[in-house]
């Protein structure tokens, strides 16, 4: 007569019919776990570059890899390089739009703006070549980023020297953190490959070297901007907050689209 009493514990919910074979069940759980692991790749890191790991294979020429990169690694590189190209496009357009109003009011800034623009143009060329070489598609939001970057550069240039430098500071902070994250992720791969005894391969080694150089130059731009009174901009918190949020959103969208 126990079935007439109210139940105190929940009934276990079993399927009425087991539809999956054991192998199919295993495959399902494996993909579910793989999908939850996929979110753990580094997107950005605010940690200082001085604390980065330095695997030995970074400085020694490598023989060709025997193991192909995994599907997850290829997907990560695909997204990372697409976002980087979009970022450099935006940077070159911001400087192009900022320079005329800025150098008209402050002619002594012309060499600095020229130097920063030249470096960004070099980065843009590097990433264009990488995308074409590795057959990665560029972001579909390309024309939208062209317009947004031009408008951003133009308005901050028109707002004055401090605002333009604050814009540069905000963008370079976001980009710097983003590159930091990517470099750390790739260095982690290299350390993993060394630990397993696999060859790292020239492709990956040179890529990491290039990205570190570009990251260093971006952080140098950040320093230049701060030296040129970026923090003296009038709506400093608002300006940098809006620009940094916009950058983060643009990075997120460019990874997907």
């Amino acid at each position: 007569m126990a079935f007439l009493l109210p139940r105190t514990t929940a009934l276990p919910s079993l399927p009425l019919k087991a539809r999956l074979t054991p192998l199919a069940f295993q495959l399902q759980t494996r993909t579910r776990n793989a999908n939850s692991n996929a979110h753990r790749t580094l997107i950005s890191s605010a940690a200082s570059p001085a604390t980065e790991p330095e695997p030995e294979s970074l400085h020694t020429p490598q023989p060709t890899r025997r193991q192909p990169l995994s599907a997850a690694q290829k997907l990560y590189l695909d997204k990372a390089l697409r976002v980087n190209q979009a970022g450099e496009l935006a940077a070159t357009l911001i400087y192009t739009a900022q320079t005329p109003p800025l150098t008209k009011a402050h002619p002594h800034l012309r060499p600095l703006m020229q130097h920063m623009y030249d470096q960004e143009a070099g980065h843009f060329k590097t990433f264009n070549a990488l995308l074409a070489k590795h057959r990665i598609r560029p972001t579909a939001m390309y024309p939208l980023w062209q317009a947004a970057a031009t408008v951003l550069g133009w308005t901050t240039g028109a707002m004055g020297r401090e605002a333009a430098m604050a814009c540069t500071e905000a963008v370079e902070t976001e980009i710097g953190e983003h590159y930091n994250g990517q470099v750390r992720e790739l260095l982690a791969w290299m350390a993993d490959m060394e630990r397993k005894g696999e060859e790292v391969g020239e492709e990956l080694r040179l890529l990491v070297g290039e990205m570190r150089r570009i990251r260093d130059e971006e952080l140098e731009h950040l320093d230049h901007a701060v030296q040129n009174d970026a923090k003296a901009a009038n709506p400093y918190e608002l300006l940098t907050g809006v620009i940094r949020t916009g950058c983060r959103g643009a990075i997120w969208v460019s990874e997907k689209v």
Partner: protein
Amino acid sequence: MSLTPLALRNVLRTPASLRPLLLQSPRACYHSYEHTQPPPYRDADAAILSSALTYVPAQGFTQEALTLGAKDAGYLDISTNLFPKGAFELVKYHLVTQRLGLKDRIQFPDEKMGVGRKVRSLVLERLRANADTGVVNRWQEALALMSLAENIPTSLRELSALSDEIWFLAGDVSVDTSWYTKRASLSGIYAATEIYQTTDQSTDFKDTEQFLDRRLEELRVMGGAVGNTLEWVGFQGGALVNLMRSKGVRI
């Protein structure tokens, strides 16, 4: 990885929706030069489909061709259960192998050839492959199969992959918005030319070549017109801004 009888049994016992998980092929996104891509089909599938293709001129893109191919390759009739989409898998096999074989069929030793001329040569070579493998007389059946609702996503994916392959082999290195417009327009031109080829009775497909030339000319004229208009708009905008600056407006 060759398919042992036990592995084949495991594949057939997995529900169809989960079979792709057993055969994890990475999405072709980042193309590495240090490693060749793994073959798109496993050995057993490739053996059955390639021998089935030899029966297509006689049988068409049908289940019979698949069955005859399976028997020819030394497998049982029931092995065609490996291909749940039936004849469409045969069409897809032809599309995939011809796309991947395109770089071996044609090379460009002459560096002075422009990208446009190379694209034309690549498209013609791919169409010639349809004729060489003997499927061009049965290609209308294949097009009908590709246009079925459940096959449209795969067909479009293959078409865009072919377009990307052709532009890559032609040496195109632009990675801005034109990446998308070039591939979209070439997909359209290739699809139209392939349909035209199925009705072409001229010797050596000369009419198809001229059809392609007319489409490429249209594309060139249209692209030039759009580009020139955008350039004009840009110049007008720049001139307006400079005019205002010269009047003292602080922008």
